[in-house]
């Protein structure tokens, strides 16, 4: 049914330019309310679930799931409408009147600074597609969780957190300004924190590693978030607005006013905001949190750390694209490209099934980021969509495997599950084909487009550094294919290698159904080629998404684009084939022994296996440094600041005495902090109080003489 809708939409998009179906006709006045309902339904579910969840039947799991189902229906329904309009430049705000809210002050008279800030809905082709995807994936994962999380000690809270997360992600997608974007972005961070740490607060077996992982995730992404905030402040200060569309115009006119030159600060602001995406999308060098985030329950990994939250960073980068200077674009592309290959290499060496997927996610996000940096906004977002489906499928599949294997995650303990879990196997295989870039599967189209785009850009720029992304991505494609098939072969092929895999069983329907749906999207998400096999094989017609969303800039002409496309396609196909071949050699046909190869590489292998030891590096520098610095600050505060104000040293003695709680000493402690000087002066003064009357007389005479002298001769 969904496939039909997609096809319908794609067809409609094809005709849109001709037919000119007006957006205003398609979207009625209640559109805003419907769109708001998409995030608000999960929000309402969250509120109810938090307050009453544990009293409801089944601990209320149906409440968020149902809300998400409704949200998904609405989102897809509207997405179909967008498809029916089929205008690449479609923006809902231009078609119909959308309400706007004054957030900080409701008084319309105040417009200064943030007082003039208003928030609204941004609904264009991109957000429509992503909204539908997020709603659908979220729903599926909720559904999956109803099975997977059975028996959890905080089952109700898990669903409430999941609902809050869905709300934030859905709201983020339709935010039309950076501030609200940031708000939901951070709420997602909170949910991510809570969900990664879900097992840390488990009532039976609290998992401390999950606590550390959740904190690590929150803190690492927060570094990025703060950079994003700084970038926001820079933009706001310069242009006085945070709305995306107004910022685009402002930047454009600023650059135009500057003679087409991008000011360095704009580059800076762009990079700062991009760093937010680096954190959220786990790009190098803030990638360290994502593998650890696998401490969370598998649905969480699937939803947050594969399909939605991490891709919010990509979405952000896409929204930022028009504000990025060419230099900033290069930085984005290089970061993305480097991350893609960097994470992929680590993926080869991991044995934990979820960790492999995590590194794969980082790598794939690198693709998207790189694409956007290279100017392929549409390509990047396209990959975001397709990846969301197949990566969610892979994660849920791995969850199903883990579930089936009684919570065993090490692939070395698995094997031969193909027979025991056929549905899981099927869906995961399809997804693996997709991620590896095998033609006709969704990932092929998007990945291919990305590589083509990087090549186009490299052709257009002509510089060595701009050619890097292309090569990095192609190499990464080969590695991706290799480690993904390694995963499939180790898990599902061969013979069971351990007790757990011998007794594995297929998961219940509410877990396999989402797998199958997502698997279907992994096949058809890029192009609905089953309906139109001819076009697919000839490659004559563009994938539906690229017809819907156009890149803002074209760097090469049509011929160049064609050339790039062909080159990229061949390169990526070759890479995928090579990767799959090697995987077969190693793990299916056993012609090569991975252990020996690993031994041959020795130190390099260890380094890669240890994730290039970035965790250790950060621990030794940033984390340890901060801890030492804060301990130092606390010490300084206690010793010096307290001491200087209270007058050094004595205070410590005073504190010690105070605890003795004797009358004199306590106040001595207090007296001490007037300062040594005061007390010393008091002591000096008292020394004159000798009790001897004649000495008093001397002092009196001396005092009087001094007074007289001072007054007479004005000594002071």
């Amino acid at each position: 049914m969904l496939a039909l809708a997609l096809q319908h939409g794609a067809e409609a998009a094809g005709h849109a330019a001709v037919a000119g179906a007006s957006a205003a006709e398609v979207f009625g006045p209640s559109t805003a309310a419907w769109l708001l309902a998409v995030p608000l339904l999960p929000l309402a579910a969250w509120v109810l679930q938090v307050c009453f969840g544990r009293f409801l039947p089944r601990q209320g799991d149906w409440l968020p799931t149902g809300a998400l189902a409704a949200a998904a229906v609405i989102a897809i329904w509207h997405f179909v409408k967008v498809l029916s309009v089929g205008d690449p430049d479609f923006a809902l705000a231009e078609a119909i009147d959308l309400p706007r809210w004054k957030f900080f002050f409701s008084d319309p008279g105040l417009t200064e600074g943030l007082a003039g800030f208003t928030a609204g809905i941004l609904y264009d082709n991109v957000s429509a597609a992503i909204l539908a995807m997020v709603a659908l994936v979220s729903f599926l994962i909720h559904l999956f969780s109803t099975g997977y999380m059975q028996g959890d000690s905080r089952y109700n809270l898990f669903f409430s957190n999941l609902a809050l997360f869905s709300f934030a992600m859905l709201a983020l997608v339709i935010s039309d300004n950076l501030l609200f974007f940031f708000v939901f972005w951070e709420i997602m961070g909170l949910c991510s924190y809570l969900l990664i740490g879900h097992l840390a607060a488990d009532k039976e077996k609290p998992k401390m590693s999950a606590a550390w992982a959740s904190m690590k995730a929150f803190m690492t992404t927060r570094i990025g978030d703060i950079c994003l905030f700084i970038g926001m402040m820079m933009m706001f200060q310069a242009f006085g607005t945070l709305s995306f569309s107004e910022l685009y115009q402002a930047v454009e006119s600023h650059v135009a006013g500057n003679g087409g030159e991008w000011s360095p600060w704009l580059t800076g602001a762009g990079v700062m905001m991009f760093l937010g995406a680096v954190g959220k999308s786990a790009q190098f060098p803030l990638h360290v949190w994502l593998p650890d985030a696998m401490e969370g329950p598998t649905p969480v990994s699937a939803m947050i750390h594969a399909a939605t939250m991490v891709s919010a960073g990509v979405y952000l980068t896409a929204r930022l694209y028009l504000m990025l200077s060419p230099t900033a674009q290069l930085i984005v592309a290089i970061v993305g490209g480097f991350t893609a290959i960097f994470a992929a290499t680590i993926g080869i060496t991991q044995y934990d099934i979820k960790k492999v997927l995590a590194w794969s996610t980082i790598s794939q996000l690198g693709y998207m980021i790189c694409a956007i940096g290279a100017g392929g906004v549409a390509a990047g977002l396209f990959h975001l969509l397709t990846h969301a489906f197949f990566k969610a499928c892979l994660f849920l599949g791995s969850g199903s495997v883990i579930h089936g294997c009684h919570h065993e995650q090490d692939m070395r303990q698995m094997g031969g599950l193909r027979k025991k879990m056929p549905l899981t196997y099927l869906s995961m295989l399809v997804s693996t084909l997709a991620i590896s870039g095998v033609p006709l599967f969704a990932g092929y189209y998007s990945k291919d487009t990305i590589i083509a785009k990087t090549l186009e850009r490299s052709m257009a720029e002509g510089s060595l550094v701009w050619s890097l992304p292309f090569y990095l991505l192609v190499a990464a494609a080969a590695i991706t294919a290799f480690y993904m098939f390694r995963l499939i072969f180790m898990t599902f092929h061969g013979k069971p290698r351990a007790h757990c895999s011998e007794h594995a069983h297929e998961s219940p329907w509410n877990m396999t159904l989402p797998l199958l749906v997502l698997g279907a999207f992994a096949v058809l998400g890029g192009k609905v080629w089953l309906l139109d096999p001819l076009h697919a094989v000839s490659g004559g017609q563009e994938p539906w998404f690229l017809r819907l969303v156009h890149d803002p800039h074209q760097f090469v002409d049509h011929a160049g684009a064609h050339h790039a496309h062909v080159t990229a396609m061949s390169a990526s196909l070759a890479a995928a084939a090579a990767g799959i071949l090697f995987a077969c050699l190693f793990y299916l046909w056993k012609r090569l022994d991975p252990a020996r190869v690993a031994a041959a590489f020795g130190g390099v292998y260890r380094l890669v296996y240890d994730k290039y030891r970035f965790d250790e590096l950060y621990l030794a520098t940033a984390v340890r440094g901060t801890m030492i610095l804060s301990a130092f600050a606390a010490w300084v505060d206690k010793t010096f600041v307290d001491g200087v104000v209270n007058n050094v040293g004595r205070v410590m003695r005073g504190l010690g005495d105070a605890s003795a709680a004797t009358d004199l000493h306590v106040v001595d402690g207090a007296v001490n902090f007037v300062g040594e000087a005061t007390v010393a002066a008091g002591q000096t003064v008292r020394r004159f109080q000798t009790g001897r009357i004649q000495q008093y007389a001397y002092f009196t005479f001396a005092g009087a003489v001094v007074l007289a002298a001072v007054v007479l001769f004005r000594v002071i």
Partner: protein
Amino acid sequence: MLLDHLLSLITFLPIAGMVLILLLPKGQLNAIRWVAAGASGLALALCCYLWVGPFDPGVGGIQLRESFEWIPAFHINYTLGVDGLSLPLLFLSALIHFIAVFASWNITKQAKGYFALLMLLEVGVNGVFLAMDFFLFYVFWEIMLLPMYFLIGIWGGKRREYAAIKFFLFTLAGSVLMLVAMVAIWLKSGGLENGTFDILTLQAMAPAWGADGTLFLGMKFTTWIFWFLFIGFAIKIPVFPFHTWLPDAHVEAPTPISVILAGILLKLGAYGMLRINFPLAPDAFQQFAYAIAVLGAINIVYGAYVAMGQTDFKRMVAYSSVSHMGYFLLGAAAWTFTGLNGATLQLFTHGTSSAMLFLIVGVVYDRAHHRDLNDFGGLGKRMPYYMGLSIIGMFAALGLPGLSGFISEAMTLMGSYEVYPVLVIISTLGILMTAAFLLYAIQRIFLGKLPEKYENMPDISGREAFCMVPFAVLCILVGILPHLVLDKMGATMELIREQLAVTIGG
């Protein structure tokens, strides 16, 4: 009738409560508590009425003014008034005192004296926010000292005597400087002949004083009074390096007193700066705004770092207050519309979140009788409701969007960025550190393995929840609908900025 003296009623209702409490026999513990609750609750009700009823948010200036002569020989008047700056803080004060009464329910030692002092404290705080006469302001300001001294000193922890006198000493040192400045200002305004203490009149006069030549040691009159007042208020806020009394006072004070201290007493210094310090020395403010902003940044970053280094839960929260009050300084020193509103809102939001944090500390302290973070763990298992409320409070404090702290911090930072970009960027480090130490605390308290000895720790009681929930609701409400508070302030902030036409930065 009620309207004519609404502000006086709000100020002095607790006094009535105090008298009633003193008249009650010592043994009537419940009666004493309920009288205290009633008096502060009534004041809160009147504040709510003021909020929704007679207060006109469209008017920037002073409203509901009450004034009569007090000591005519010195032109001292009893003048009360409320505007957008004082209204949210007044409301906060009434709320926090009301909650504090319930948080004090388990105090049985000398309960009569305790609740009487609590009521007296509320009079002082409410009075400061409403006084529109400098002299009256000072009187209310000082009235708070004694109750606070005894509340910490008698009902505090082990080192309460030290903490109490330290608090008293620092605050008094600040207020005598303010007193000297007040003497100078009054004489400058005309002294015995036609001097005035009326804050608004003084504000109107102040710009002319800037033209004076050197007064003393090469500094102008306005420079002198600016710094005297500033230090006086800075000690209360507290601004680095005058903050050292705060952790000690907090650690030793009983929970409700910590709540009051962090929730509202720190705000008095900030309020004083906006109401008196800056407007009465505009040229000096303009000159030294950068220095104040630097102090603000130091507060934010340094406070957060020191908080990270603490193992005592309460001490950590105390330092987080130091950090959070830095935002106020930063925003106020920027003097932009957004920054100023953000700074003032920060007072309100920090009031709610820090009050909540101290209540959170109190709950765990009441049960475990210590506050060593490293000695907890896994409490989330036994105390899920407590954990939930704690997470709201802590995330509000660390500035999570959707909760109140974010709104004020974001406004402050965005408003200050155009004036002090570098300082703001440095300050963001404080946000990071705040997140770090709060999360680290959550982890050490709630997550992981539950030590055997806490196996039977009960979850929060209804009374404790009743204390925390209002703050949690405010944290969420202001985070989602900030205009509920900001609308009340906007016009006043605009007016204050117009009147104090200084240009800072650039």
